């Protein structure tokens, strides 16, 4: 008796907690509202099943608790009932899977007008690179990374010359414009994650991975590393500033290109050599 009541309170408590919880989604700031909707749908279906199963169990505890003078029913199988339950479950599962796959299909197909952003991760920080006027990022190699080439751009690649370097852990993005995040890492696994954008993907050394989203709320957001990357993992933060087109273009024009950076270093070198000769 007591057992049934306590279990019942647990189930009621769970439902009330879900309704009144102050802990829920961080406000979304991207196009991935569909993910939230699928989760809400799964909550309704799954939560409904959870409550139904538990209530049925509690009902049995109340109704059929042990009495010496009573016997249980003897019925090893009920093919019809089992069949109904199998098909009902299959339908329910399919109904949840379908929206999940539809949204995944959107997730893996990047819109053509997306701007590419090269996110380079290391232990423990981030830096960013944007394509220049040609709209294409130059190819890179870890071995090329040096002071005068912080992204390891292949010097022979013509597309790389005008790439825009953001040697900061904060990147600015244009509001309402799809972004294709190209992730790479020079050492271990990382994951560039902004909870408000919902999306994430691991950066894997030795390869380039991607995902996309469309920011739709102007503001500043914190970037978290979401794949364990060693002892500094928890402190590996960055930032995103989503701006309107005009503000974004002002910011963009203030950034240095690879060409400019190389020239700056060459000048430094020449100056340094002159100093050395004197």
């Amino acid at each position, binding site marked *: 008796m007591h057992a049934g009541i306590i279990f019942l309170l647990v189930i009621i408590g769970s439902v009330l907690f879900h309704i009144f919880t102050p*802990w829920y989604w961080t406000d979304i700031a991207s196009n991935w509202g569909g993910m939230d909707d699928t989760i809400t749908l799964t909550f309704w279906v799954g939560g409904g099943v959870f409550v139904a199963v538990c209530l049925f169990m509690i009902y049995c*505890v109340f109704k059929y608790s042990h009495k010496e003078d009573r016997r249980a029913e003897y019925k090893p199988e009920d093919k019809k009932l089992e069949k109904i339950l199998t098909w009902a479950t299959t339908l329910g599962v399919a109904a949840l899977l379908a929206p*999940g796959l539809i949204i995944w299909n959107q997730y*893996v197909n990047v819109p053509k007008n997306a701007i590419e952003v090269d996110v380079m991760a290391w232990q423990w920080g981030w830096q960013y690179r944007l394509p220049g006027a040609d709209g294409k990022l130059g190819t890179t190699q870890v071995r090329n990374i040096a002071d005068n080439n912080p992204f390891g751009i292949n010097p022979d690649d013509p597309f790389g010359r005008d790439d825009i370097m953001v040697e900061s852990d904060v990147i600015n993005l244009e509001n309402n414009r799809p972004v294709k995040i190209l992730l790479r890492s020079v050492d*271990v696994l990382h994951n560039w994650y902004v909870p408000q954008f919902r999306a994430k993907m691991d950066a894997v050394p030795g390869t380039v991975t991607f995902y996309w989203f469309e920011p739709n709320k102007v503001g500043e957001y914190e970037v978290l590393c979401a794949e364990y990357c060693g002892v500094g*993992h928890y402190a590996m933060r960055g930032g995103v500033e989503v701006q309107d087109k005009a503000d974004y273009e002002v910011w963009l024009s203030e950034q240095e290109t690879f060409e400019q950076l190389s020239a700056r270093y060459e000048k430094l070198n020449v100056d340094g050599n002159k100093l050395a000769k004197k």
Partner: protein
Amino acid sequence: MSDEYDNNKSYQAQSSEVMDGSAGSANPDIDYVRPAEVGEQDLYHGHSFIEKWVFCQDAKVIGVQYFLTAVFTGIVGLILSWLMRLQLGFPELAGFMTAEHYYQFVTMHGMIMVVYFLTALFLGGFGNYLIPLMVGARDMVFPYVNMLSFWMFFVAVAVLMASFFVPGGPTGAGWTLYPPQTILEGTPGSGMGILLMLISLSLFVIGFTMGGLNYMITILQARTRGMTLMRMPLTVWGIFTATVLAMLAFPALLVSAIMMTLDKVLQTSFFMPTILKAGEVLEYGGGSPILFQHLFWFFGHPEVYIVALPAFGIVSDLISVHARKNIFGYRMMVWAIVGIGGLSFFVWAHHMYVSGMNPWFGFFFATTTLIIAVPTAMKVYNWILTLWRGNIRINTVMLWCLGFIVTFVNGGITGIFLGNVSVDVPLSDTYFVIAHFHMVMGIAPLMVIMGAVYHWFPLVAGKMLHEGLGKWHFWITFLGAYSIYFPMHYLGFIGVPRRYFEMYDSPYMTSAVGMNEFISIAAFIVGAAQFILVFNIIKTLKTGKKAEQNPWKANSLEWYTSTVPPEHGNFGERLPVVHRWPYDFSVPGAKDDFIPQTTAPSEVIHTEVEKT
């Protein structure tokens, strides 16, 4: 379908029931059981203390050895979880803890609980003790190898524990041991710690293979007369299928451990691409970190079911016995276990949706993962349908079973969130994942373990554990664990990432502070409550009530041994002969509400047995 059924009807036959025992020889044909094809196995009985209790070949003693060693590692894992919760809930009290420590505790807690505690406990512990008894064998088929299996496990545990004391401490790479960070500086214990971990895992796999061969072959070859596969208790089915999974999955872990050891020691590059560390390019190149993840999860996902399937099997038996009702849909339950086991090899990459593998895999693995939900749901339905119209004893064992159903369904449902590829994207690597897998493969199997301990303790020790203490133990554990992991899902919705030593002051994370304190307090209480069981066991062994034979009035063979606790050889002079499945409870027309598996049909000729 009506909730009520006619009680009277099922009793009608009882008054005319006179045949028990008297008709044994009247109709020998219906009692026919095929003779045994092979003779009985010779057993080596130990002569000295060492042979009887240390290097012992009796599967029951080996089971207890496995159990106690696993519980020891479990207590270490529990203490580590306390330390983690101290840091997360009350960092100001955990000043002694650095980030290195924290990650080492996280890693060791995870690895210990999954491999050295749960796997060893279910298969090594319950498997060894119950398989020969339940299938009616005198022992495992290879007793000597079985003994080696335990001692190999023991050495693996010793090596694992030794890593706490080497320079640099144990590995802090996370239990998934993802390269490259696992073997690079910047991860705690990337020197000796990770080497010992890899060696320990390799030893574990070797030891487990020796035990696993025993479990499989004993079940396939050493069943007693009449014990057909479809008359085996679901416990045996669960352990059997889990063992098959383990034999297929552990090799993937073994090879990945060996390859990583080579990467670490000989600078090979199985998993290591070109890496730039501290301004220098390391001597690696061309390897694939994702290859490791595929190998790891090819082991790691079946591993979940290696833990879950024995739990499914055991809980089915416990529910049936204590609800005094046959397990509903036995054949469905068997096929669900086998089906889940088979499917579990086709879902591994659902741990890798955002790992950077080819994203098109997502469609395949989301589909297979959600398909597995169907047989799993069938099992849940059958458990609650077994309760329905039962005659349920609400004792400690049943409470653990009910707790299992609640936590397992809860954790199973959140699995549908995470398996559903695009829903996984915002939730992966957050506290939602932690809450999910602790609920479904931590707490739920633990509930079964506890239920099984209270259920089989009278058999193992010959004494009844104290019910009152048992109920306290259950309620504190269940309510506490539920209040740890149920709210924790919501931290995941906020976006709080896992494996964070500190949360800093991110605006959406500050609201998590209060909950973290609450969860930590609950974790301290739940952990402490486990010592109620330790106290209960010690008290019972000293002053407990002596158990009668078969105190729960169960049908399966382990309760029909020649002595309690069973001696070496289990069944005395003659092995039992099996005439029916182990779930003939409350059969209309029978004198008692249970008919043991050894009862011949002619002895209960007036009963309406549907299935034997």
